[in-house]
């Protein structure tokens, strides 16, 4: 039997992401309907020390074999190294910080989502394709924000009209919008996850500045879009998944998710779903206690991903397409549709740093 420990955020501000992750993951588990896999779910409250404590509990008392579910990079950094150091497997449903992709990579650690930079790189590639020449870029002042702008610049070939770091958790962007207006930019890239993005988009739409905007999928997630409303319509964003991605697995997933939870799935749900299916595929092939064999089984990625083509790069991070989506209104619901592909079969920038 395999025991899986899921640590994710189920209460407080960021709960919606964790709930989607859990629901996607559990949907796959239910569909598989097997009794040799047991999942234990705990709420990390988005606090690193709680996450560490839960990991300890799952490892020491529950004796799990695999951990998964963490949404946030800083929590992942707190849990993942210690987990893999103790010989357990960790499958990331979302957070995939650079440290764990490069020098800190580990044969027992797999990111089933992406590498954190991927969507930003996609946005940068799109900005280049779209012919943007002078983009204004902004992100919060914390490691993920800095990585984001770096990732964008990696694939963006035009000039920068401005580069601004905002406060983490900032809610008022009037000053930045004024800067954008004055900068002579021809476009805007922003990475502002969660409520920050909602605030920015609403205020941007109301400001009268109407330069094209692009951002990573985090700010255009199914859960968030309804709160942004009209202000988001038409905005382009980069994503590795979309509900209208044309493949069989995805169609089935979207339908089943809607059926079961009565809402549209988000990218977090999709990643959770994929993670569970990857895990199940490996369990069928190898014994979880045989580290090498199980790692190899995971690495084959022999499952039907809702993202279509899916394989792992040398550092156990996905090779996949990054798409460009546009926000649209479907009836009463705001959602995304794919309008192009920014990067094809894209891996990540850290593969070479990883020695394993």
């Amino acid at each position: 039997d395999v025991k899986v420990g899921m640590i994710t955020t189920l209460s407080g501000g960021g709960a919606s992401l964790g709930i989607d992750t859990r629901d996607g993951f559990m949907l796959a588990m239910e569909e598989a309907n097997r009794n040799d896999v047991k999942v234990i779910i705990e709420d990390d409250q988005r606090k690193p020390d709680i996450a560490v404590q839960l990991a300890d509990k799952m490892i020491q008392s529950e004796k799990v074999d695999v951990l998964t579910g963490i949404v946030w990079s800083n929590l992942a950094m707190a849990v993942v190294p210690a987990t893999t150091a103790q010989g357990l497997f960790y499958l990331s449903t979302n957070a995939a910080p650079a440290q764990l992709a490069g020098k800190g990579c580990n044969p027992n650690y797999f990111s089933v989502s992406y590498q954190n930079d991927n969507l930003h790189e996609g946005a940068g590639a799109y900005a280049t394709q779209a012919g943007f020449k002078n983009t204004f870029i902004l992100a919060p002042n914390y490691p993920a924000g800095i990585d984001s702008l770096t990732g964008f610049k990696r694939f963006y070939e035009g000039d920068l009209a401005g580069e601004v770091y905002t406060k983490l958790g900032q809610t008022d962007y009037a000053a930045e919008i004024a800067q954008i207006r004055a900068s002579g930019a021809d476009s805007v890239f922003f990475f502002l996850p969660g409520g920050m993005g909602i605030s920015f988009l609403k205020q941007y739409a109301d400001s009268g500045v109407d330069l094209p905007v692009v951002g990573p999928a985090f700010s255009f997630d199914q859960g968030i879009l309804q709160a942004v409303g009209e202000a988001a319509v038409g905005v382009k964003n980069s994503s590795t998944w979309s509900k209208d991605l044309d493949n069989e697995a995805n169609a089935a997933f979207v339908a089943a998710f809607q059926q079961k939870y009565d809402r549209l799935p988000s990218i977090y749900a999709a990643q959770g779903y994929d993670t569970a299916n990857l895990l199940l595929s490996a369990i069928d092939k190898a014994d979880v206690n045989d580290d090498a064999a199980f790692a190899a089984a995971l690495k084959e990625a022999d499952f039907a991903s809702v993202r279509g083509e899916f394989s792992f790069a040398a550092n156990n991070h996905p090779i996949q397409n990054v798409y460009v989506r546009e926000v649209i209104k479907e009836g009463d619901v705001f959602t995304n549709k794919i309008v192009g592909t920014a990067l094809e079969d894209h891996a990540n920038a850290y593969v070479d740093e990883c020695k394993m």
Partner: protein
Amino acid sequence: MSTILIIEQVLNGLQSGVMLFLMAAGLTLIFGVMGLINLAHGSLYMVGAFAAAAVAGVTGSFVLALIAALAAAALAGAVIEVAVIRRLYDSDHLDQVLATFALILIFSEGTRWVFGSFPLFLDIPDALSGPVTLPGGIQYPLYRLALIGVGLLVAFGLWLLIERTRIGIQIRAGENDREMIAALGVDISKLYTLVFALGAALAGLAGALVGAIQSVQVGMGEPVLILAFVVIVIGGIGSIKGAFIGALLVGLTDTLVGIFLPEVLKLFMDAAPATSAGSSIASMSIYILMSLVLIWRPSGLFGARA
């Protein structure tokens, strides 16, 4: 950097200050005037925003949404006061801290229980959307101008209430010596329930007004709570005027330092570290401001009373 931009940023600073005042106003009333440390003030702010979003979602009317926000927050405030706070006036400030912290937990998760985990939608009314052109060619969102107006009105109204009316005097007297004012025939309990409801309503109003241009989500109240505390402490607890000046100071500092410090640093160092160092210091700026003010005047700018 053009003068227009500088003027616009000063305007932004002032406007964010007024918005802060709107949030701080209710807190000043409760904290400053009634002497109660109400950590749950942020929750009332959230209640207002959620009530507004829910009603706007059903009726589509912003006016109704505002009324709902006021009513829901006032009601929540009155209920809290009667059920919990009333028993705590005589006890330690610390008991109030614990109790209102507990209320935060209850409100946050209660709201999530009722409305789900996803942020809600609340938009500004059509009549107030879009920018207007100010003299000098500055484009400025009309809604934000409206916010400034409301903030000024609230400031003036509150000042009148507290400083100029008999009820205001009685409230302040109650803060000094509750037992005594009651023994002299003033129904201070009822008065305090009213004040608490009023403070809560103001928080709810702020939540609804600000929620229209920010995100309406669980936990939205706590960062605001801290800022509001900073504001009233800088201004001097119990002083409406102080809260107003404090809010403007904080708004200006926050906006201008964040924008201009990286630029200034770029004169001395490379662009990338300048941006990052500049914004790091900027995020601390209001706290630095507050400690400087308090080191200089230990009871805030207008806190002669404390």
